[in-house]
């Protein structure tokens, strides 16, 4: 009896070692970045996708390895009708199984989203597939996005990591956070406008810079245009909290201010949905960090004039951005829609369907700026 017991149960132990889904870590190919481009002469509406696969060995530099070490990534690309189809065909070229749970960045070429595709259709797979994470950062590239994943950064081993850090640190300078794939879900479902970092090729060593932000129209998910330079500053000044730098023209000379902790509040001045009147209350507390004029700024009367210029400059950049968004692009990324929905739900219900589309209440809205300027300190020198 006892022997029978063993004969039956001991073989069962063999089953314990079985596993249907076992996949050794060596066989996983971790994807860290994805670049999506259109295909030239695109008759079949194909997409070209390149994935950056990490080579873990290349990430570790050994002390005696003077030759510079191995490559730490490889780029594999393929063509297909949907992102998932491309992924499958990339997998055929790869020795491992693509593991998408650590993607940091998805770069999409602007040629793709200007006319042909809705961005939400392209990145749907990054939200739907179960192993994806919501923290993926989206970016738009000027021209070819593939090239960006081929740059040679000096301080980090992976181009995708470099780009992610580049975007994050630039946003952080303005005290903002880049939108992630998880955040985008809201804009896609509610058909609201949004903006994404806009990357450009440059001839510098790293070959890349954050050139501005790409503005997308909510109703059709297409790129409406970009905001650059001053316009970004103007956009940053409309955020609830920000840090920015303003360069003020003062009697033909320049003076630079930093605003380490600026703050902006939105107010609604009337209740007429046909002609809404918003006001930005901007509180700027500036620090003078650079002035090319030999005036004694420790004396208060000299700073008064500068203060006025400071306010005018802020007003100038803000109204430039606002007018561009209202009149040229017709996209509300000023968060008026959020504000109305949260604070004035009754009014929002009336204008919801024609906000920055159709009747375009957004473009018709009046915006006044109420800028409160303070110069906290003139700096160490006079």
């Amino acid at each position, binding site marked *: 009896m006892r022997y029978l017991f063993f004969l039956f149960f001991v073989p069962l132990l063999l089953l314990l070692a079985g596993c249907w*889904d076992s996949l050794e870590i060596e066989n996983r190919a971790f994807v860290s970045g994805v670049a999506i481009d259109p295909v030239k002469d695109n008759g079949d509406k194909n997409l070209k996708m390149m994935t950056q696969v990490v080579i873990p060995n290349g990430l570790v530099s050994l002390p005696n390895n003077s030759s510079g070490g191995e490559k730490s990534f490889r780029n594999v690309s393929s063509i297909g009708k949907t992102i998932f189809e491309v992924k499958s065909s990339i997998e055929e070229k790869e020795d491992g199984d693509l593991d998408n749970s650590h993607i940091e960045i998805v770069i999409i070429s602007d040629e793709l989203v200007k006319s042909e595709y809705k961005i939400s259709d392209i990145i749907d797979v990054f939200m739907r597939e179960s192993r994806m994470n919501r923290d993926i950062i989206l970016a738009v590239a000027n021209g070819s996005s593939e090239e960006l994943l081929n740059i040679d950064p000096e301080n980090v081993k992976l181009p995708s990591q470099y780009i992610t850090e580049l975007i994050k640190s630039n946003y952080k300078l303005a005290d903002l956070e880049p939108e992630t794939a998880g955040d985008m879900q809201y804009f896609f479902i509610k058909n609201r406008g949004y903006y994404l970092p806009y990357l450009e090729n440059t001839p510098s060593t790293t070959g890349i810079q954050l050139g501005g932000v790409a503005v997308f129209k909510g109703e059709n998910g297409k790129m409406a245009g970009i905001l650059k330079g001053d316009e970004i500053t103007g956009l940053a000044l409309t955020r609830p909290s920000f840090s920015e730098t303003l360069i003020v023209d003062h009697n033909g000379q320049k003076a630079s201010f930093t605003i380490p902790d600026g703050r902006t509040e939105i107010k609604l001045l009337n209740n007429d949905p046909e002609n809404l009147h918003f006001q930005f209350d901007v509180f700027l507390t500036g620090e003078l960090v650079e002035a090319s004029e030999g005036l004694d700024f420790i004396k208060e009367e000299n700073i008064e004039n500068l203060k006025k210029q400071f306010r005018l400059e802020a007003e100038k950049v803000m109204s430039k951005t606002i007018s561009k968004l209202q009149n040229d692009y017709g996209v509300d990324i000023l968060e008026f829609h959020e504000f109305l929905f949260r*604070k004035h*739900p009754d009014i929002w219900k009336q204008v919801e369907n024609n906000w920055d589309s159709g009747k375009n209440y957004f473009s018709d809205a009046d915006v006044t700026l109420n800028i409160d300027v303070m110069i906290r300190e003139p700096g160490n020198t006079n």
Partner: protein
Amino acid sequence: MRTVGYADGKISNITILTIVPSIVIAVGILTYPRTLASQTEGADGWITLLIGGAVCACSTFLIAKIASLFPGQSFYTYTSSMLTKPIAILLSMLFFLLTITIVSYETAFIANISHHYLFEKTPSEAINLAFLFVVLYAVCGERVAIFRTGFGIIVLTAVATIVLVITALPSADWNRMLPTFTTDFKSYLGELPNSILSYSGVFVLFFYMKLTRTPSKSVKSAVIGAIAVTGFYITVYLMCIAVLGNVSTANTVYPLVELANMVRSIGFLDRIESLYFVIWITTVFMTTVIAYDISVLIITDIFPKANKIFIAFCLLPFVYFISLLPTDYYQVSDLGMIIGYAAKCLTIITLVFLWIMYWGKGRKGKRGKS
């Protein structure tokens, strides 16, 4: 199989307190923020959660109270003395069917969700069987041991949830709670059944109250347990809204998993949702064990001489078979819906019958005495 005998097989008030959350918190925790957010605006869903919690606390009180009036008696004994034997058998059988369906449902859900997040190729037959074997192992042992495991798991869940809430705080945006009270009355009303269903399972107290040492005091602990669940649900819901926002919560299949997904880079761990997964699976495991145990208990109450382990083993094939019936996500959630409504209806019918008979008989008894 040898089991360790405990002192008297009786349970304390604290145990009753933990049984309620153990059975109520099940797979629903992963999905209820979605169903709630999809019908309400902002964070308004907490109102229906609160109402659902109040309903749950009331029914807990009524169930525990009626059962405590018959200290030491099993459900079958006191229903037959109140409502005649055939009705007692009928009710017991209905509860029996309900509990084995619950076991199957939870198992099917586990298979479904682990397919979604963990395994791709493993057949659900294998997952179900492995899960049910572990459940069976727990049920075959002493009943008190189940409660002790449950106690541990509830503490673990509570601690994990508190940690989750704290670590998610940095990504929370409290503006997402706004606007408040904009949901119209109709939507609240339409949502209410869902909220109430999230709290099903307290009927186990019909059966477990006979095990307590101090029945009258246990009523209070059971109600505290129900209130704790309400607090837990509301906290998790508000956290989902604050971190993911109403729209994302309403459009994500398992919002709570996504919430854990958002919490990243704690020390060397990049993605910690698998840890939370383990914890939720243990709470689901606890619900399954209790439901399985109740179905065994119902049989042993009716046939006191029956061997518990034998019955537990006999039930396994049926449970396994039912757990394989729903094949996709939609069927699993439909089954959950059916179970929720069935549990509520059965509980209400039993409660109404018992209380009516109790009042009726109580008056008669008084008249007889005077």
